[in-house]
């Protein structure tokens, strides 16, 4: 008997249809060379990828929908192939091996003794990539191949290759999204050709860093922040493998859907964000406006949670959705527009960015585990009067250089303001805090004195935030500690381009600095 080609042996093996004799052929071929082994493992990886790809794409698809797919199949071509196969097999019968009778399909050993058609639900592990719950329904037919049919199968496999032409695309894939804007974006290596205006076809894409804004054909707009790995499914649906995005879905994109391994979000007219961490698999969905329906991807029967504006929910593979959504975190990390990304601060050290300004920055009102927060107060304010005794020049500022604290921010300057707020919460300990802040544009001035802060709260402070006057009502006789007192541990350094500030502070209570940067 002529040996079958490795590709046919591998396919028969992966489909569980290999005879003992063919198995010996496969083993002998695998042992011939490491290259053969590597090729087999590639084939197994492709087999596995096909499974993963199709399961991921069909998450949420009902059994009925799948059966609809079967019904939709156009069988005309297949029937004609069958006729060709039968004719060819009659010619080559004597050369062909026989196929075994396929084994009836047993249920998995771990599934117990459920009868066919019975639905089972299992509880499994709390790790990403594993099913939390899975329902499986027994399928029926165990196909039986008669000898002639079996011979025909191999005949067709061997010989149809000569006459069947696989139909590669006659029409290009649909263009379902456009790259409308970007900021400091770096696409993954395989997508280097993507530039502004690029039209996307369905498929998987990755951004290493920076921001990209995509507009889908149905109207939804996405701001994706790298690192991000996502899959455009169609003109109104996306699968997020990991990363962060913010979406705006107009009425034309009603029911815009984002799937992740754990959460599925269906837009009901809204702006929302999704953050899926690559390390833990933890997913957060947050709604800024409107309404979003959230459900767990793997458990179709689980109840759905409706998220309203300014609410969020976090979930992973191990836990069911909470009964109630949480309030949207002020420190949420979603960037909702490219313009916002251009104005983004880059922070390191013990500080977090509040994208929603706090209600109060009075002493002990805003205590965080990371010591300090910074938030934008106003944009595009023109200074009506000069602000004296502020830090304006590059250099280091501490007790040794107190004579440098004599800068002036001139009137007429258009600025954006940010407040840095450090609060010990009255813990009675001095906890040093060091941060690095990179502003999107050069610094105009740093206001470090209590007086300068008090004087500019009204014009440069956020209208929804109440500010301390430096004298806390609980400590009416206390020293005014709002600004930095520049004790021997306090220090500010402004870089030569005036975009980077290194700040070290320590206080028993509270320190604040108002930064003014050039406005766009």
């Amino acid at each position, binding site marked *: 008997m002529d040996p079958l080609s490795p*590709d046919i042996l591998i*396919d028969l093996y*992966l*489909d569980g249809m290999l005879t003992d004799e063919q*198995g010996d052929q496969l*083993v002998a071929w695998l042992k011939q060379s*490491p290259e053969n082994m590597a090729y087999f*493992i*590639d084939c*197994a*990886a*492709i*087999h*596995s*990828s*096909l*499974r*993963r790809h199709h399961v991921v794409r*069909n998450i949420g698809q009902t059994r009925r929908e799948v059966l609809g797919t079967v019904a939709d*199949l156009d*069988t005309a*071509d*297949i*029937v004609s*192939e*069958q006729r060709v*196969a*039968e004719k060819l097999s009659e010619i080559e019968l004597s050369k062909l091996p026989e196929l075994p009778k*396929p084994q009836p*399909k047993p249920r*998995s*050993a*771990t*599934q117990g003794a459920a009868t066919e058609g019975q639905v089972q639900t299992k509880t499994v*592990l709390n*790790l*990403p*990539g*594993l099913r939390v719950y899975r329902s499986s329904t027994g399928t029926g037919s165990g*196909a*039986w191949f008669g000898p002639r*049919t079996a011979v*025909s199968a191999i*005949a*067709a496999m061997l010989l*149809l*290759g000569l006459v*069947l032409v696989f139909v*590669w695309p006659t029409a290009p894939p649909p263009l379902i999204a456009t790259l409308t804007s970007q900021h400091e974006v770096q696409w993954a290596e*395989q997508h280097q050709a993507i530039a502004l205006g690029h039209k996307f076809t369905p*498929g*998987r894409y990755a951004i290493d860093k920076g921001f990209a804004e995509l507009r889908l054909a149905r109207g939804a707009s996405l701001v994706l922040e790298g690192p991000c790995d996502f*899959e455009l499914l169609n003109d109104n649906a996306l699968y997020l493998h990991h990363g962060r995005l913010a979406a705006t879905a107009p009425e034309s994109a009603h029911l815009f859907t984002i799937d992740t391994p754990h959460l599925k979000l269906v837009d009901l007219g809204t702006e929302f964000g999704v953050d899926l961490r690559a390390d*833990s*698999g933890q997913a957060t969905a947050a709604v800024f406006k409107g309404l979003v329906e959230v459900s767990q991807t793997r458990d179709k029967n689980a109840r759905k949670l409706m998220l309203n504006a300014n609410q969020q929910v976090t979930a992973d593979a191990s836990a069911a959705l909470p009964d109630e959504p949480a309030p949207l*975190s002020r*420190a949420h990390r979603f960037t909702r527009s490219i313009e916002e990304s251009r104005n983004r601060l880059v922070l390191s050290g013990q500080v977090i960015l509040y994208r929603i300004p706090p209600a109060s920055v009075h002493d002990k*009102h805003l*205590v965080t*585990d990371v010591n300090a927060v910074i938030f934008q107060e106003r944009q595009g304010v023109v200074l009506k009067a000069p602000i004296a005794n502020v830090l304006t020049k590059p250099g280091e500022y501490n007790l040794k250089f107190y004579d440098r604290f004599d800068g002036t921010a001139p009137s007429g300057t258009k600025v954006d303001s940010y407040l840095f707020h450090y609060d010990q919460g009255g813990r009675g300990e001095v906890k040093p805090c060091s941060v690095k802040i990179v502003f999107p544009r050069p610094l105009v001035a740093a206001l470090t004195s209590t007086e300068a802060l008090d004087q500019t709260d009204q014009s440069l402070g956020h209208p929804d935030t109440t500010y301390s006057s430096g004298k806390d009502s609980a400590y009416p006789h206390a020293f005014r500690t709002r600004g930095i007192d520049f004790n021997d541990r306090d220090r500010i350094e402004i870089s030569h381009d005036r975009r980077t500030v290194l700040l070290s502070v320590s206080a028993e209570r509270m320190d604040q600095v108002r930064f003014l940067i050039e406005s766009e």
Partner: protein
Amino acid sequence: MPERPAQFESHSAAKLTALWTKAQPTVLAFVLSMVHRFEDAEDIVQQTGMTAAERFTDYDESRSFQAWVLGIARLKVLRFYRDSGKHNILVADEALLDQMIDHHVGRGPRINDINLALENCLTKLTDRARKMLELRYVRELTTGDIADYLGTTSNTISVTLHRIRKALRKCIIGYVQANGG
């Protein structure tokens, strides 16, 4: 009111999830190369993950995590064949099985490349070919089942699937090699 960020998971749990997330595609590829039914293979991958979680304290961080979980998966595969009474010629040859595991270790980047190439290559298939793959890989239908549904013979389905997969392999491996894989 004072606000505090959410507490993070414990260090070891976070480390395990990160390691497992990276290793899981390789484990699935290995198990699917040894066990034919998707459900059985995915059960084994789940059991492997559960055992890895239970025994994570035994894991020696100086060794490859992928090699460690593949070792667990190997035992699960052997147990599956022992318990089910089935036979697999590759599993029966333990030296070959060990060689397979050696080849799988460190293949995470290659599998990522294959996943990305698959996306690209699938777009080149016809709708009919893609639907055929859906029947095989989503419905988990055998060639005989697909033939029953479509009122044709399993030969035709086998041929069709073989041709699709062969074309995909050529495209994917070519794509990966062209991109430095």
